[in-house]
């Protein structure tokens, strides 16, 4: 498979997942702001922007409207759902001939609804729900129609890395929310895992258990460990291993972080949750660099320096 196409597939996976997860996080946070009047809107919004990696003027007023523009509607803000969906569609256009028709049309129509203003007009709650539905449609179309070749592995690799990264941010928002409201319940709801959590822990509900479930559960598909495991599996599928050790830098990074999370005691991990989550996000970024170097480097191309002959 062409390196350039592989790169597009990887980023389609990431962008679609990012749009979905951003919508999930926003859904919880806007809900929290509505329900809970005791907390300061300003602080919550500032924390949210910080955790999502959006830079903003520290002196400016930060309110829900700004957050929604930055993270949902403004197509020029790089972290917004609108921008991310546009990027997913653009990547798909570049790999058009590799995608199945069903998947391309799912991506293309999604993008069109954003451009035509339908997404903004739907308002926050139903808009975010729509993003989740579209992501499910895109992923479902891919799942039902794409062959499990290299392209699929890159798509899944992108999706899993992004999911690990975004779940860690979701956990961080919950950790920052502190005592106000019931942030962990909402966070679990955002992941669609609240009922699964209740069943697993037989109704007991503590912050520690919720953190454990979101970080370490081996069976819940949005947990950090589950995502890292899948990402590792994709890398294994892409590159047959030798007898000893691992040659692939991305594999090394992900494997080490996963082992670190799994083999440390839970108390140790939750002691500084935001710090741990930042470390995890760094791993995802470094792994992306490593994947780019290893598989996509060829796609950069060379420039001809000579003049006209």
């Amino acid at each position, binding site marked *: 498979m*062409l390196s350039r196409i592989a790169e597009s597939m990887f980023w389609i996976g990431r962008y679609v997942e990012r749009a979905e997860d951003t919508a999930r996080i926003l859904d919880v946070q806007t809900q929290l702001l509505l329900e809970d009047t005791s907390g300061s809107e300003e602080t919550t919004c500032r924390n949210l922007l910080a955790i999502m990696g959006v830079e903003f003027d520290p002196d400016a007023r930060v309110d829900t409207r700004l957050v929604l523009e930055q993270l949902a509607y403004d197509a020029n803000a790089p972290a917004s759902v609108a921008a991310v969906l546009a990027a997913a569609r653009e990547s798909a256009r570049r790999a058009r001939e590799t995608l199945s028709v069903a998947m391309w*049309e799912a991506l293309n129509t999604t993008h069109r609804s954003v451009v035509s203003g339908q997404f903004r007009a739907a308002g926050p709650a139903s808009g975010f729900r729509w993003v989740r539905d579209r992501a499910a449609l895109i992923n479902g179309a891919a799942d039902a129609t794409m062959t499990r070749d290299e392209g699929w592995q890159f798509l899944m690799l992108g999706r899993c890395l992004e999911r690990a990264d975004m779940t860690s941010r979701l956990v961080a928002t919950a950790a920052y929310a502190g005592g106000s409201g019931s942030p962990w319940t909402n966070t679990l709801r955002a992941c669609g895992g609240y009922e699964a959590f209740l069943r697993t822990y037989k109704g007991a509900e503590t912050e520690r258990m919720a953190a454990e479930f979101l970080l370490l559960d081996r069976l819940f598909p949005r947990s950090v460990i589950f995502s890292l495991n899948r990402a590792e599996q994709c890398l294994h599928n892409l590159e047959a291993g030798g007898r000893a050790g691992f040659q692939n830098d991305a594999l090394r990074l992900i494997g080490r972080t996963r082992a670190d999370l799994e083999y440390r005691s839970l108390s140790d991990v939750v002691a500084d949750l935001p710090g741990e989550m930042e470390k995890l996000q760094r791993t995802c970024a470094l792994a992306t660099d490593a994947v780019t170097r290893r598989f996509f480097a060829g796609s950069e191309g060379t420039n*001809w320096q000579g003049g*006209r002959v």
Partner: protein
Amino acid sequence: MDSMFHHYPGGTGPAYDEMFDAGTMRPAYDQFRSTLDTMTMADLASRVEALQASYLDQGVTFDIGGEERAFPLDILPRVIEQDSWSTIERGVQQRVRALEAFLADVYDAGQVFTDGVIPRRVIATSSHFHRAAASVRPPNGVRVHVSGIDLIRDNDGEFRVLEDNVRVPSGVSYVMTNRRAIASALPETFAHHRIRPVAGYPQRLLAALRAAAPAGVADPTVVVLTPGVFNGAYFEHALLARTMGVELVEGRDLECRRGRVMMRTTNGPEPVHVIYRRVDDEFLDPVHFRGDSLLGCPGLIDAARSGQVVLANAVGNGVADDKLVYTYVPDLIRYYLDEEPVLRNVDTWRLGDADAREEVMDRLDELVVKPVDGSGGKGIVIGPAASRPELDELRSKVLAEPRNWIAQPVVQLSTVPTFVDGKLGPRHVDLRPFAVNDGTKVWVLPGGLTRVALPEGELIVNSSRGGGSKDTWVLAGPTVAPVREEVVVHAHQAEPPSSGPAITDLTGPGEQEQQQQQAREKGGTAC
């Protein structure tokens, strides 16, 4: 139907109308009557809307100045009957064979110049003549793998050649998508016609490209080379690659090593044997052509010269579709094939000839004047529509470089009813049939792209100038109809799929009834 065409003025002016002959419908369109009779204008409008939405959803688009738009497709197809088509087919085949022979000659011994059929200076002064292509012999002798010969229909209804395109003709993807879109927009009419299919094009093209592979390569790797997503025809490049099942590469995906062309894959470089390139000559290889081009790949021309890779279409084909060479093509057909041209040219004056110039210069306001190396409708001046200053400017340009210009009478292109702004009106059309040459046979796609000039009276149909398109139906004649015998096959009665407990509960007698009965006996109501 009558209401629909009530105010339709087609077929009464000088231009040939393909649907109406002075108010009566031509027989080719007979079958439309039954469908359109049952439809109101509002029905038609809603179908037009659905058609456009489906193109946007599928991403059937092209770029104008960076903006992506749905490719404009008119809902009423254009019908070409079998007889007219077989003339077109023979004419296009003949023309492609003559141009192939001409190109082979130009880049080899140049016998045609020695024999005085065409002056050598016509070629030597063409900006599309590339020395880099001289004495390169393609493995199966084909240089024009794909061609698009633009035809128009004059006032008598006769098809004439307007220009040749043997470099990188585009538009064939829309022929295929238009057919699918119209089949679902007008299913009733579609079912009533026996229309020759166009979906086989990618397979024909792939076969021709594989046949062009370098000698000794049994299973060649074919790729489509695109300038990138910002190119206006990117949709077409992607569609062709997808339907042929080959890679779509950009210049940066390719790399030349030791005279061989490789593509960069996740498993390292892999060899490429045939490149269906949709990048213009000038941008193809910075070593030989434009040094600042990032669209091609350095070393490509040398690799092609050494026979390691085949470029389709070949480099330097532009000399054959130069508009000045166009005027010589009927002579070339007689010279190489010893045949009379099946399709006539449009009458043309070469302004490089002093006699012709004398005849024409005073009548610029009655003629169409075209630059010989232009494409996409650029630089064309239509005399009757031009202002005084425009004509003066044109005159000085022509006098400065007469070789660069030709003049033609204002040819009224034929008209076909077209749905614009909520009503049907006559609009001018041309036709671009596509031909694929695999070295043994020139195959002409039965259909081709009909381009429509959407503003009323406008004669330039290029989509870069706001033109639309129509689906083109070539009818299969009754004589070639394969007689199909009615064979009745009775299917073997298969077991139904396993039903599972829920289906059994819902559809069979049993528990459900019992539970309801029990509820009644307890004294509750069933509902």
